[in-house]
């Protein structure tokens, strides 16, 4: 026996959450025709099928693009600092792809490593993630290559699986998920097939070995020559988490903000002296791949990538992690160590 909910009942539930003052995030078709995870104003905006993956990720629920961490005012010679309370508004992410949800436990390591980030943790505790198992994939998906799949449970509080007759099976995976749907479902005997997902495209062990042994390889330059150094990949990536801290204000005071940053920007590693250890794009791209597939796994035991393919779909020049890794895998298989 499975727990089942009709699509209409699900949408009614979304409206109820909104009426209760909760934030609800889900795939929405936006002004540019692009589907993005965005805050819903009404359940009618929610788009649950007809596309493979939104153009962004759900990380904004726990790691917003811009966040005030404290404010300051100048009072003559004095400076007054005011703490900003982390946002604890209840947030429900509905219709998240499993690859996006899987990123959250991966990010937990970083935001609780040498510093317990209270902003991240408050939002994380207040967020319930309801995933929708994938029924289709495209050529840019590679979740199966990083140990995940179309119905991965990692990071999810409850999973919806598309069922016949406009219904969804609901599998509550955590207490939060249980609490969210308690009493809202009916029992039914249904067997819904789970899709296989994309074929495996590379072996992460091969990748890690290549990364260890080919730090200075010319291959980095050749593979990444077309990279323009924008942040379209990093900002929409579910696992990328680099941030910049800046002060914004005027003569009377201001606020200190934490903003997304991308290791692909030319200025990312500029020192106060003017020296830049990653002055060319190849070095920056190398770092991105090293971080995701060697450094983060060595440090935290988790790959900093969930194979969602968002980077590749967004890249204006068709690069992205998958294409870079496939190019690397070709070289790794040929066992060339180019100097």
């Amino acid at each position: 026996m499975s727990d089942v909910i009709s699509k209409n009942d699900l949408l009614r539930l979304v409206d109820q959450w909104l009426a209760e003052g909760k934030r609800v995030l889900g795939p929405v078709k936006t002004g540019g025709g692009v589907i993005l995870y965005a805050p819903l104003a009404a359940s009618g905006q929610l788009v649950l099928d007809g596309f493979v993956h939104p153009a962004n990720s759900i990380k904004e629920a726990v790691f917003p693009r811009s966040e005030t961490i404290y404010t300051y005012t100048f009072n003559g010679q004095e400076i007054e600092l005011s703490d900003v309370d982390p946002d604890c508004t209840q947030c429900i992410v509905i219709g998240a792809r499993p690859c996006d949800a899987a990123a959250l436990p991966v990010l937990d390591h970083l935001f609780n490593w040498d510093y317990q980030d209270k902003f991240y943790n408050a939002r994380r505790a207040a967020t319930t993630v309801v995933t929708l198992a994938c029924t289709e994939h495209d050529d840019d998906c590679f979740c199966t290559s990083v140990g995940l799949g179309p119905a991965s449970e990692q990071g999810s509080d409850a999973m919806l699986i598309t069922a016949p007759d406009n219904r969804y099976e609901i599998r509550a995976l955590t207490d939060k998920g249980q609490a969210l749907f308690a009493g809202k479902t009916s029992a039914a005997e249904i067997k819904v097939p789970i899709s296989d997902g994309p074929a495996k495209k590379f072996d992460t062990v091969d990748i890690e070995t290549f990364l260890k042994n080919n730090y200075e390889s010319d291959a980095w330059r050749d593979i990444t020559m077309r990279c323009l150094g924008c942040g379209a990949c990093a900002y929409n990536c579910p696992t990328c988490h680099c941030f910049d801290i800046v002060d914004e204000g005027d003569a009377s005071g201001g606020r200190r903000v934490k903003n997304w940053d991308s290791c692909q920007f030319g200025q990312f590693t500029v020192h106060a002296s003017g020296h830049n250890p990653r002055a060319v794009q190849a070095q920056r791209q190398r770092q991105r791949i090293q971080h995701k597939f060697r450094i983060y796994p060595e440090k935290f035991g988790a790959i900093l990538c969930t194979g969602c393919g968002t980077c590749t779909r967004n890249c204006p020049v068709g690069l992205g992690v998958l294409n870079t890794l496939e190019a690397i895998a070709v070289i790794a298989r040929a066992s060339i160590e180019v100097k």
Partner: protein
Amino acid sequence: MIDQLRQTCRKLLEEGAVNVVIGYGQDKPSMMPHPVFITKPEETERLVWNDLCFANLAAYVTRKEIKALGKPAVIVKGCDERALVVLEQESQFTRDGIYVIGMACDGVGNPRAAKCASCAVRTPRYADVTIGEAKPATPAADGEFAQLDEFMKKTPVERLAYWKSEFSRCVKCYACREVCPMCYCTRQGGRCLVDKNRPTAIDTSATLKGNLAWHIARAFHQAGRCVGCDECTRACPAGINLRLLNQSLAKAAGRAFAYKAGMDPETPPVIGSYSLEDKENFIQ
């Protein structure tokens, strides 16, 4: 056309006339055509040419990683060539420092991109070699600003609401800046206005304030320079209608100063020059 292109490029590399060919490749059938940098004659087989060759390769001519490879041959469509004209006017390269391969083009995208309907440069005009049939020029482009004219019928309050909604999606990824051939300030090792601090000119935060200030700055820095390749609009992950914004300045330059960016290398750039006869009706 593709055979002629590959042969031309192969010859250029074999003879050492250029060190690198900047063109389009498609390494996997499932991929869209993407920029490639061919340095070996036999690799010219990687080059492709079809109506999905969107990228404006003129953007690479100013990048230091590309310059380090030596003299380039750049494959350009008419719109891309206009960008080269502007870059040359701005002394970003010397004409004999690059080899231009022009590709006759009857449009990109399925369905055709908005910019193609009013394209006046289907055959590049200043290339060292032009490949493909000369397509007839599109009839008078009175439809060029149709979408903008329609938009300007809205009230100022409606217009502001539209842009607030558009810019609320901006995450400041700067894909628009990096695909643009004319945004080369960062590429010379310098700084873009948005990266300047002490004092900060534009908030870097992806707030409405920071986003509006950024897009105003970028659009205005492109005034009279933007050639309407629309790569910024295509590159934006959030689908922001940058084309409309850039068009408003292109239309203004045309109407007020009879200027169109990248059409004639001899005409002085509109913002870099002035005339004693310039007219206006808003200065008291």
